Structures are given as C-alpha cells and as structure tokens.
C-alpha cells in the first residue's frame, strides 16, 4: 500500500478529534492537559506531512515554534495545577466552583 498525504492527514485529524474528546469528557485537569498536548501534536503531524509532500520546509520550522511554545505552556500549566492542588487537595474540574453567577 502506498501511504500518501491523505493518510497522514486523516491520522492527524483523528488525533485532534481524540484530544478534543479528551478535553471535553475527562474531568481530571492533568488528563485534560495531556489531551491538549495531543491536539497541538496533531497540528505538528499535519504540518510535517504537508511539508514533506509539498517539498516546502517552512512547515517544519513552524513545528519547532509549536514544540517550543508547548514546552513553555506545559511548564506554566503544570506549575499552576500543582499550586491549585496544594490549595484544594484536588485536581478535578468539579472542584473549581468558588466563582458562580
């Protein structure tokens, strides 16, 4: 079987959809955050495969930017979740209810 651009794009779309599903259905902040990283990586996969099949390296440069930004985001995000855990002893979305109406 010849693996073409479409195959990669379908995989990347599936990864994106799985990530989105995870963010929507899971209630643990860490798991939600993992799903978000999955979504970012699905975009990376799309960029790299477009780049490979269109013979244009610009996309791969963009991937480096995304990886760097994702790393910075994880550093801040996990720190935040840990700080919240210390305060609340829980990393569940249901407990984020101090602000209403």
């Amino acid at each position, binding site marked *: 079987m010849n693996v073409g651009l479409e195959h990669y794009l379908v995989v*990347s779309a599936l990864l994106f959809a799985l990530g989105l599903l995870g963010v929507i259905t899971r209630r643990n902040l860490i798991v939600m955050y993992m799903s978000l990283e999955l979504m*970012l990586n699905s975009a990376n996969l799309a960029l790299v495969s477009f780049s490979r099949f269109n013979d244009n390296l610009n996309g791969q440069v963009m991937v480096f930017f995304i990886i760097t930004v994702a790393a910075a985001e994880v550093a801040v995000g996990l720190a935040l979740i840990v700080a919240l855990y210390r305060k609340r002893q829980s990393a569940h979305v249901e407990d984020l209810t101090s602000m209403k109406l």
Partner: protein
Amino acid sequence: MSLEISVVALGLIVLLADLWLPAERKRMLGYSAAAALLLLFLNTFTSHCSCSLAEGPDNMTSAGMFIQDGLAVFFKRFFLLAAVLVLVMAVEFSDRIGAGVSEYYSLIVFALAGMLFAASANDFVMLFAAIELITITFYVLTSFQRGRVRSLEAGVKYLILGALSSAFMVYGIALIWGTTGKFNFQELAQVAGKFAANRVFLFGVVFFLVGLGFKIAAFPFQMWTPDVYEGAPTPTTAFLAVGSKATGFVLLLRFLFTAIPDVAMHWNKLLIIVSGITILYGNLCALPQRNLKRILGYSSIAHAGYVLLGVAALTTAGESAVLYYLAGYLFTVLAAFAVIALVMRHLNSEDLAGLAGLNQRSPLLAATLTLAMVSLAGIPPLAGFFGKFLLLKAVIEQGPANHGYYCLAFTALAGVIISLYYYFGVIRAIYWSKETPDLSPIEISKPMKMAVCFCMAGMFYLGLFPGALINYAAQVVKSLK
C-alpha cells in the same frame, strides 16, 4: 523593531533590578517601568515610527514577517499607553500581591512586548509566537495571587481554555499553510481567492478564527471571561480587557482584510450572527450580576460584539470605527478598573455593596466610575457614545446591500438599552445606597490620581472632539489593503 527590543530589555532590567533593590523600594520599580514606557510612547510620535505612516502601500508588498505600517504604529501606541496605566495601577495594588511584585511588573512588560509583536505580525509564525507570548504571560498574571483560591482557579480555567484555543489556532494554521503553502499574509492574499471553495482551506480559516474568537471573547468562545475577570488580580483584569482584546482585533483585521480579503467578502453573514449573539449574550448575562468585576467581564463580552459590528460591515468606515471604539474603550475600562483597584483594596470580593458611600469617601473616584459607566453605556458626550455611533453608522450604510445589517443594528440598539439597567445599577450603588458601613476617605497616590484624571480627560476628549482621531484612524486603515 527597536521599540520591541527596548520593551523586552526593560522587562529584563526590571527582573534584574529586583535582585539588588532593597525590599521597600521594589514598589517604586513599577513607577520607573511606567515612566520608561511613557518615554517610549512619546518617542513613537517623534522618531522614525511616525514617518512610516507617510509611506505608501508599495512599500508593504516586500514586507516580511514584521510589518511597521500605520495600523501597527496605531496599535503600538495603544498598547504602550495601556501598559503605562496598568503599571501605575499595579503599584497601587502591589500590597495585595505579596511576594514577587517585581516579577509582576516585568510580566506586564513582557505581555506588552507580545502585543507589540502581534501589532506588527505579518506572518502566521510571527502571529503564533506573539499570541502565545501574551497568553502564557497572562496565565501567570491571572494566577499571581497564589494565596487566593479564586485567582488560582481563574488561572487554571484560563489555562485550559486558552490552550484549547491555541490548539485550534495551530491546527487552523497548519491547514491553511498546507493547502496554500504560504505563511506570509500578502502572499496568501494573492492566492487565497483560488482556494475559496477548498474545504480543507475553509476548515483552516474557521479553526483559526476560533482561536481569535477566544482572544476577543466573542460568542461562543466567551465562557472563560466572567470567571477569569473576577478571579484575576485587578490590574491583570484591566490589561486583559484592554490589551488582550485589542490584540485579538488587530490580528482579526489583518487576517480578514490583508490575508484573505477575497474569502472574507463572503463571510458577512457569519460575522453578523456572531456579533449580534455576542452583544445580546453579554448584556443579558450581566443583568443579574452583583460582582463589579464580573459585570465588567460580561460587559466586555458585549463590547466585543459591538466592535465586531465594525468588522462585520467589511468596509473601511467599519474598520476605522473599530479603531476609534477601541481607543475610547481603553480610557473607559482602565478608569473603571482603576477605581475598582482603589476602592475594593481592602475587601475580599468586589461586590457592588462595597461601593456604598463612595461619593463621600472620594468624590473623584465616584465621578470617574460614574463617567466610565456612562461611557460604556454609550451616552453622549463621552467616548463610548461616539464610538457606538460610528460603528452603527458603518453597519447601516451597508444595509441596502444586505438587510441582515439592519437587523444587526437593531440588535445592537436593543443591547445598548438592556445595558443601561446594569450600568445604572452601579451608579445607583455609588450614590443611592442605603447601607453605608464605612465612610473613611480613600487615599490616592499622586501617580494614580494623574492616571485616573488622564483617563477621564481621554473619555471627554474623544467624545467631544472626535475629529482628529477619526481622521487618524481613517488614514491608518488604508494600510490594511
């Protein structure tokens, strides 16, 4: 580019100065940073920045990732001014932040650097890097009061939804780039027309707009706004309301009118619907609120809807009305948050009851908050009125071509009438509140007094003498094409 480099350097200097300064002088570091930014702001009127306004559009076809056109300069002045006022507010607020005040100042400066880069972004890579610089700094700024659960909660909510919107934006960029092969906006504009029927490309555009919609808090990506506005420290909320929202709009204008003008032409229906629903949602949800910051959060959703009126009109008149409205919004919202930061300093929550007797405690602050509410509601002769007038005029001018615009103008007017109720609820709480538990006068430091008076002067100036800014805005939006 020199402006951005100076701002980043200033952020680093503030961080380093923190190491050597004695603790009692760290507070003043904020004033020094504000003064430095004020100098940079004044410098944009004298140096090379202003002459780039005169350059014609030919100069821009060769622009790379970074573009210094009239629009960029306009928004750079806007962001610098906002940052100066926010820093002054942050100094006033510093005793509530606790540890790491200097980091708070420097993070504001770094967020400002991101906004300046975003104003000049002419390329998806630059745009992404700038927007993430802003967003990630704001995660930290939002949750800076680590001892307060609300601040942390607001930070986590902003983090999850912000990262979600970045993921959408990045995937959109990947699809747009994959189909067209262009990152640069001008190059994309030349080929975008050919892809108007390409599904993958259109998916990319929609995903990208989802990411921007989150920044400007447009329906249906507005759910983070009230919680984050309420939980975040007040200076952060102010910067979020003014800076982050304006960044979203400058990028939206550039994307729709520079990068994909041929495609955007057919999207007026979508913009009309989003704008109308955003206005109604923001105004209706604000009605039952009792927390002042939450009211302003919902009102900022409604105002995103009003500004979208100008974008939906898809004309140069609409675009310049957007710029005018944002300028008026800057003075109005910063004045309101400055008062909140001062009055609610010693209270745990920002309930409306905390405003009781404000006219006796500090007539200046009472007058400022009243004027800010009147301007937000859009009553003459303040800036908010004239901005709304220009936006509605731009929309109604388009009415004969598409009757949806008449419905949109009607919706906006209905929104204004609904909003009168809660804005006047705030004014009622100041002047006609029954309970007056605390009548101690409020001390205001001199820089803060100057900032508040400056905001008031700005509101009046833009409302009474709109001519100069209208001409400037009309000249600036020419650089979009």
